[in-house]
């Protein structure tokens, strides 16, 4: 007579890295629910201690092969803030451009290969390619466009070598940037088309009253730098992060859980960015959003695929503008000396807010580092989504419910590798 059910996913598919899910249900009541990250911790913050401050962008880039630019930019922001240095507008434009390249690469992969198959009922992108070759081809080409931007500005497509604290080692020539124009124009059209296509997918009727947290800049869609704002009215500088957010360890995850001080979960990522920065979207992105039926705020996590597509429109259109207005800066970088100082930096990784803090000693060596990636901030929000979703859908059979819950996790495009790291591990079952 027991109505007890247990759903276990030992190894989540189509996420970056290794994670699992555990759910114990009694009727429609959730007894136990865990989003588990079982990759072992990576100790990057410890590696950084004793290294030159100028090495931080290259070392932290290695945390992720999908979003190295985010790590480089948050590191540069923190060290430049420590030194009180200001970069030139030319350097800023190049940084925005390379960051858009990363967004295109990351969103292109997630929208077409990791997320769309969920909505269309395919196990993976390969199965989907058979029936929707033109979509998968567009995805590959958008991702490749992102790679090309990274190569032109950063020197190579993964873990770029041209980024340094204070700017770049070498500023690309005008004609190098101009070579991106044609493909960016194609990308803009393809992204608009993608936003329209994904808006026709069928989304579970589900919303949550999230506290969104994202970067806000006075006159740009939040990405490269700015203040940290939230939908609950928080408006703080990056150095105030530790006063408002706290990390703690839970036994089922090797990634620290972040929460608001004295509060619960919050949500970072494309939906938070979009909802807190809507007015700064590029014209074509705003139009794509409205045609896709999105209002200025999106609270249905399943629709994050639409938001990512709108962000690809914004990325292509803004990148085109940067390429058109580009003048090679006189100097590719500015002097930065953060010796004896502490600095905090934030930027918007494809998956959301990425916070760095560095303490630099009098010799210019890193004495302490603290890095909080988006996925560790979203872990609680993921669990809260599942906890809210399950009682409404407890009538579904195990297989259907499991599929939808996995999809709910993939809504976040969780980068478990960033939150921890890969190692060849055996899956440990938690039997009670």
């Amino acid at each position, binding site marked *: 007579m027991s109505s007890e059910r247990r759903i276990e996913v030992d190894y989540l598919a189509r996420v970056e890295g290794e994670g699992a899910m555990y759910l114990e249900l009694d009727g429609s009541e959730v007894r136990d629910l865990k989003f588990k990250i079982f990759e072992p911790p990576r100790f990057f913050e410890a590696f950084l201690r004793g290294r030159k401050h100028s090495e931080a962008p290259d070392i932290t880039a290695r945390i992720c092969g999908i979003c190295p630019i985010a790590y480089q930019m948050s590191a540069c922001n923190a060290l430049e803030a420590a030194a009180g240095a200001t970069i030139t507008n030319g350097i800023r434009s190049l940084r925005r451009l390379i960051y858009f390249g990363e967004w295109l690469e990351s969103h292109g992969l997630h929208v077409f290969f990791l997320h769309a198959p969920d909505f269309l009922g395919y196990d993976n992108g390969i199965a989907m*390619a058979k029936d929707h*070759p033109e979509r998968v081809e567009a995805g590959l080409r958008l991702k490749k466009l992102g790679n090309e931007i990274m190569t032109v500005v950063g020197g190579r497509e993964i873990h770029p070598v041209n980024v340094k604290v204070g700017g770049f080692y070498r500023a690309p020539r005008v004609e190098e940037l101009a070579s991106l124009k044609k493909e960016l124009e194609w990308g803009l059209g393809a992204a608009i088309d993608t936003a329209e296509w994904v808006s026709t997918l069928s989304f579970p009727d589900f919303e949550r009253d999230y506290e969104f947290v994202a970067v806000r800049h006075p006159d740009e869609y939040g990405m490269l730098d700015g203040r940290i704002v939230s939908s609950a009215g928080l408006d703080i500088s990056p150095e105030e992060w530790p006063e408002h957010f706290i990390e703690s360890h839970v036994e089922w995850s090797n990634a620290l859980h972040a929460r608001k001080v004295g509060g619960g979960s919050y949500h970072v990522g494309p939906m938070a960015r979009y909802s807190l920065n809507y007015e700064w979207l590029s014209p074509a992105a705003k139009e794509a959003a409205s045609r896709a039926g999105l209002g200025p705020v999106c609270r249905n996590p399943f629709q994050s695929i639409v938001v990512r597509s709108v962000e690809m429109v914004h990325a292509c259109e803004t990148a085109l503008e940067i390429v058109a207005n580009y003048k090679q800066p006189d100097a590719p970088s500015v002097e930065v000396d953060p010796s004896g100082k502490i600095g905090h930096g934030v930027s918007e990784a494809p998956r959301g807010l990425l916070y760095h803090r560095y303490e630099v000693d009098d010799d210019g060596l890193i004495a302490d580092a603290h890095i909080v990636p988006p996925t560790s901030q979203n872990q609680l929000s993921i669990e809260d989504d599942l906890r809210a979703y399950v009682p409404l859908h407890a009538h579904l059979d195990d297989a259907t419910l499991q599929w939808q819950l996995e999809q709910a996790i993939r809504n976040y495009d969780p980068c478990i*590798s960033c939150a921890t790291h890969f190692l*060849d591990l055996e899956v440990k079952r938690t039997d009670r």
Partner: protein
Amino acid sequence: MIGIGSEFRGDDAAGLEVARRLRRVNSATCIDGSLDMINLWDGWSDVALVDATRSGSAPGTIQRFDGKKTDFPSSAFVSTHAIGTGEAIRLAREMGLLPDKLTVYGIEAGSFAIGAPLTPSVAGAVDVLVEELDNA
């Protein structure tokens, strides 16, 4: 020729080592046999892939496959990411993006220990494959 692997995981570096030592063949490397591989062979008609395998055969065993015809299981090539060598080849096949000729060489790994050099049998297999590809 595309060598796939990680520098830091013992015998996983076998493909990279072959790519580095080829003299007469154009070569490239990538960390994962992922989607980027499809971009790498774009425009080339005769492509060789070299990756480490975990098939249960003796370490250092070289296996040769016709990449146009073989259906690789997902786990045949070790990848740290969601899309591995086998999947990328399948995807390219579905989409008609395979080169005219694709030969896949698997070198059976003995160890994926972090920071370790190639094990002797795998280093020997690398010598054999470099010789074979450079004189093909």
